[in-house]
């Protein structure tokens, strides 16, 4: 059985406007793979299509040997893929603990849920301190922690992270990326979408560069980080 994520010739359209024009990529089990690119390149759209939030126009998406491209998002989640959406999507009117419990909604293994809850609290001690607070009262950084923690509570083997660094102070950005490394060490796979290309490439194994709905470049993370085109367009340097 093929493991990880395998996307072939993915096309996604909003109404008549095609936003993603036939993109192919794969993420192997245990890898951190990043999609980088400017605003509007189609990064979030790809994640949304992969997790079943929006329908695809063409192509195929295979996750751990199952074709998922026609499945609704709750079915995809049940297969072990957790999407941390852009803007975090915290349930603002629920307590932090309830947010985490919603993450575990589709699981029935009480023991496993408890273990994962302890793991999340260990990863983010702040969430343990604030477990009774309403989600909406958390700071941006804490909300991001909650969103990632909630995704971990689904028991997923693969995480899709959409701009986890967005709107966060530099110190927090660093700690979020450190968490990504911790999560990978637990044997989980990560597909990371980022505008902060330098950070993303620093922790990723491989990367894909998206430009207006197409993959412009792909390769090992250090290869991309040192690629003149990438460093010019996304890393802010013109070292070349």
């Amino acid at each position, binding site marked *: 059985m093929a493991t990880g994520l395998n996307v072939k010739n993915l096309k996604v359209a909003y109404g008549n406007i095609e936003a993603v024009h036939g993109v192919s990529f794969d993420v192997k089990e245990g890898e951190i793979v990043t999609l980088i690119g400017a605003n509007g390149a189609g990064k979030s759209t790809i994640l949304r299509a992969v997790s079943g*939030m929006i329908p695809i126009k063409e192509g195929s998406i295979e996750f751990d040997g199952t074709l998922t491209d026609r499945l*609704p998002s*709750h079915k995809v989640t049940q297969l072990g893929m957790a999407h941390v959406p852009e803007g975090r999507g915290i*349930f603002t009117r629920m307590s932090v603990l*309830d947010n985490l*419990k919603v*993450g575990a*909604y589709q699981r029935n293994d009480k023991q496993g849920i408890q273990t994962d809850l302890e793991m999340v609290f260990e990863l983010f001690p702040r969430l343990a301190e604030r477990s009774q607070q309403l989600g909406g009262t958390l700071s941006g950084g804490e909300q991001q922690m909650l969103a990632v923690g*909630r995704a971990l509570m*689904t028991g997923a083997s693969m995480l899709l992270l959409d701009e986890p660094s967005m709107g966060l102070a530099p110190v927090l950005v660093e700690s979020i990326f450190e968490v990504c490394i911790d999560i990978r060490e637990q044997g989980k796979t990560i597909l990371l979408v980022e505008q902060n290309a330098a950070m993303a490439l620093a922790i990723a194994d491989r990367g894909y560069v998206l430009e207006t709905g197409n993959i412009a470049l792909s390769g090992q993370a250090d290869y991309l980080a040192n690629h003149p085109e990438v460093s010019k367009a996304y890393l802010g340097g013109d070292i070349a």
Partner: protein
Amino acid sequence: MDLFFQTLVNGLLIGGIYIAVAAGFTLCFGVLHVIDFAVGEWVMLGAFAVFWLNFFTGVDPLIFLPLIMVLFMIVGYYFQPLLQRVITNQQSNALLMALAFTFGMSILFRGSALTLFGFNQRSLTTFLSGKNFEILGISIPALRFGATVFAVLVTLLFMFLLYKTKLGLAVRAAAERQDVAGLMGIDSSNIARIVYAIYLGLTAMSGTFLGSIFSVHPDMGLRYTLFAFFVVVAGGLGSIQGAILAGIMLGLINSFVAVYVGGQYIFLILFTVLYLILLVAPKGILGKGW
């Protein structure tokens, strides 16, 4: 002073029934984003269902309560996908479509009831009808008392379901962010069906009570649709606690206006009160929030 307390008690007793309608209606709005114009007609259908059951079997209407609730929950569970289709199937203005559709439903239900059952007012006689008991010199009609106690208990059960169970957790999640709820493995479309089913169950149950306390006729619904709007807007759109408060308020206003001003002024006064509430608190009594 006796009259005052009597009116107060009557208001609280009828408010208890409105609470059940309000809680369901608000949840329906919160999760489905549908303002159901036909809410009053579901009350009417609930009342007629129990009327005919009673008519053909002779068994006391109140005995049928559980059956009516289950029956309408089943109707709601299978009816909701139709409603869902109308409001999401490539429609650009879902909220407006929902209004138009449920408004059409209400006309259809009312018209059908008129054609089938005629204009007659029918009364439902239960084993509690016409009985009173006295507490501290205030006479309490047994039927209203029983109805309110039952409605409040059912509403409490409903709140327990919403706040203390896994299903309730999923419902609250879907109410706030349907898309994110999906990412948590929650089947939002099924949650919407369950919510609509609960709403219809609560509404039809209230119909049984309201039909027994007042009377059963095809036109009885409109009044309750307007009441439901008052409760949801005054309470704060989507706030269940607010709707419950507004439901009690509605009962009190009804009762006091009927005694001290005159029943014909009820809507004038009700909507003046709503206007004033919105002037002071534009988001309603409790704003939005569960």
